[in-house]
């Protein structure tokens, strides 16, 4: 908890946006403040894989010119510096095939080392159109497979709250950049919790939209029926602003849904009276840390004191979520990652015979967790096991989804922990894949059902951040943002910042 005003780099988009509009600060100053933090802490925390300083400053100067001219389009993200998880492609080649000054894309993998995308993804496109300033690409677990950021081929990310611990994953570089004042917001991807869980462990806000709400065009694919792009921010209002910029139909993604994007900021009434909020008893699982449970229960009590009606509900198939996910996600991953063949782009082992080149390119290019998931997925899809594993998991997926849908006709949203633990020591869980997978027990059922979920800080346990998760109906991000914002306003954790929050 700070005593004076926070340094510029640690404030919210909402605060610095007002300063930009009143011309008290410039976009260049904001950009320089983030770049200074990246320069001071970036290498130690290992949060960025690429930084584009020159381009960022040029874009900031252009934003300052737009602001001086009055920004008639009234773009709330104009001049705001941000980072993209390195799973989002950024255009880095001109039409002649030459490097154009754009940033490379690696997906945290050795197999994409040096890859330069010939096109811009939807996230880069929309945020550039919104006037936001791209600072760089953040570290992440390889192909977004992980819950600790230790699976990156470029080394682990250190949590600024305690640098001997992980920031969570797979969007751990993004959660760290936002927590440590290196960017005013960042994008993440969430397949089983990869936005919400690192947000929880890093003390920031993270929102996974409804499947289909945000385009997946230009997002390196992991599990195509589960992946979604969403924002990580330092306030719920900021999260609403960024979601508004990212959301919307994109014909280039055939699973992008053409439904209107509401004004998410306007939904933040600060009022939860009249809302029925369900607490699924199965989410308070054995093995949850007592400090986490206490903080989450206190958060639920705060919402009750604000006038929300709290009811206990049951989602009995929750315990099958992990098993369902660890068949469906690896199966889809094994198909998606077949494209890394050492022929079209990326690393190639240089073998003279094609089959040998496939084997060595993929054997050398992928890390241990990615290989494990490719193997698991290939096995689950192989002849003789397809029905027993893959079809069975798809049937249980139906059960999980139907239970959510039924409960969410009775309540407006659900309240749950985001993660069963706070940030853990680097190396503590790397030897046991199953232990690592348990980190996502409270988040992955939400992906299985395709619903939106947000994590909002609800205090500290042992000095480390805890997240409260709010889960909503499909395409009702407005309600979960409203609940999280009403909570944030009174909970007293809005100014929580790690020890890096000083100039």
């Amino acid at each position, binding site marked *: 908890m700070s005593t004076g005003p926070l340094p510029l780099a640690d404030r919210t988009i909402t605060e610095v946006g007002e300063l930009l509009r009143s011309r008290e600060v410039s976009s260049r100053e904001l950009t320089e403040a983030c770049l200074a933090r990246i320069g001071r802490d970036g290498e130690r925390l290992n949060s960025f894989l690429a930084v584009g300083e020159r381009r960022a400053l040029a874009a900031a100067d252009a934003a300052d010119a737009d602001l001086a001219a009055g920004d008639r389009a009234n773009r709330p993200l104009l001049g705001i510096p941000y980072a993209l998880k390195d799973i989002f492609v950024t255009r880095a*080649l001109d*039409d*002649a*095939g030459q490097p154009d000054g754009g940033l490379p894309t690696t997906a945290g993998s050795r197999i994409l080392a040096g*890859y*330069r995308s*010939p096109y811009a993804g939807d996230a880069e496109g929309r945020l550039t159109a919104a006037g936001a300033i791209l600072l760089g690409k953040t570290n992440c677990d390889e192909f977004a497979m992980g819950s600790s950021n230790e699976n990156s081929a470029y080394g682990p990310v250190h949590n600024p709250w305690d640098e001997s611990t992980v920031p969570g994953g797979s969007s751990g570089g993004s959660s760290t950049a936002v927590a440590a004042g290196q960017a005013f917001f960042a994008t993440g991807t969430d397949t089983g919790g990869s936005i919400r869980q690192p947000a929880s462990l890093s003390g920031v806000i993270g929102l996974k939209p409804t*499947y*289909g709400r945000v385009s997946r065009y230009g997002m390196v694919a992991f599990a195509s*029926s589960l992946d979604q792009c969403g924002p990580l921010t330092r306030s719920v209002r900021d999260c609403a602003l960024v979601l508004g910029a990212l959301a919307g139909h994109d014909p280039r993604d*055939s*699973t992008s*849904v053409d439904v209107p994007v509401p004004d998410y900021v306007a939904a933040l009434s600060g009022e939860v009276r009249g809302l029925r909020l369900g607490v699924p008893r199965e989410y308070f699982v054995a093995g949850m840390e007592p400090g986490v449970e206490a903080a989450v229960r206190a958060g639920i009590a705060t919402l009750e004191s604000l006038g929300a009606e709290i009811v206990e509900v049951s989602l009995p*198939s929750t315990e*099958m979520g*992990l*098993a*369902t996910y*660890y*068949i469906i996600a690896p199966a889809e991953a094994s198909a998606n990652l*077949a494209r890394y063949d050492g*022929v*079209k*782009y*990326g*690393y*190639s082992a240089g073998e*003279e*015979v*094609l*089959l040998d080149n*496939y084997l*060595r390119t*993929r*054997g*050398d290019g*992928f890390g*241990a967790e990615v*290989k*494990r998931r*490719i*193997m*698991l997925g*290939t*096995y689950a899809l*192989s002849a003789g096991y397809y029905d027993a*594993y893959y*079809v*069975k*998991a*798809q*049937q*249980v*997926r*139906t*059960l999980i*989804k139907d239970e959510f849908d039924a409960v969410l006709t009775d309540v407006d949203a659900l309240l749950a922990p985001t993660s069963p633990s706070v940030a853990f020591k680097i190396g503590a869980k790397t030897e046991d894949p*199953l232990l690592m997978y348990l980190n996502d027990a409270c988040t992955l059922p939400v992906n299985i059902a*395709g619903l939106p979920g947000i994590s909002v800080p609800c205090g500290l346990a042992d000095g480390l951040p805890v997240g409260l998760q709010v889960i909503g109906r*499909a395409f009702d991000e407005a309600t979960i943002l409203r609940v999280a914002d009403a909570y944030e306003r009174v909970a007293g954790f809005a100014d929580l910042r790690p020890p890096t929050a000083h100039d």
Partner: protein
Amino acid sequence: MISRSDVEHVAALARLGLTDAEIDRMQGQLNRILEAVGRLQEVDTSHIGPTAQVIALENVMRDDVVRPGISREAGLANAPLREGAHLRVPVVLEEGR
């Protein structure tokens, strides 16, 4: 339980070259994971249909019109091997194999 030769078979299907040490490690880990996910067999799904995706979209079409795309040079720029306007692929059939 999956055997060492099962692991080798699946690795061949996935075109993953694994070292002997990796195969040993993978066999143990996959067996533990498969035992955990095997819990799904306890669930009665005899009257439940499968869910492949959660949104009610199907057969998304676009107009069949030519649109600008990625230039040939940009499309080939990341290729490990190329020959003129083409990707070069290592030999598929080796003499004597």
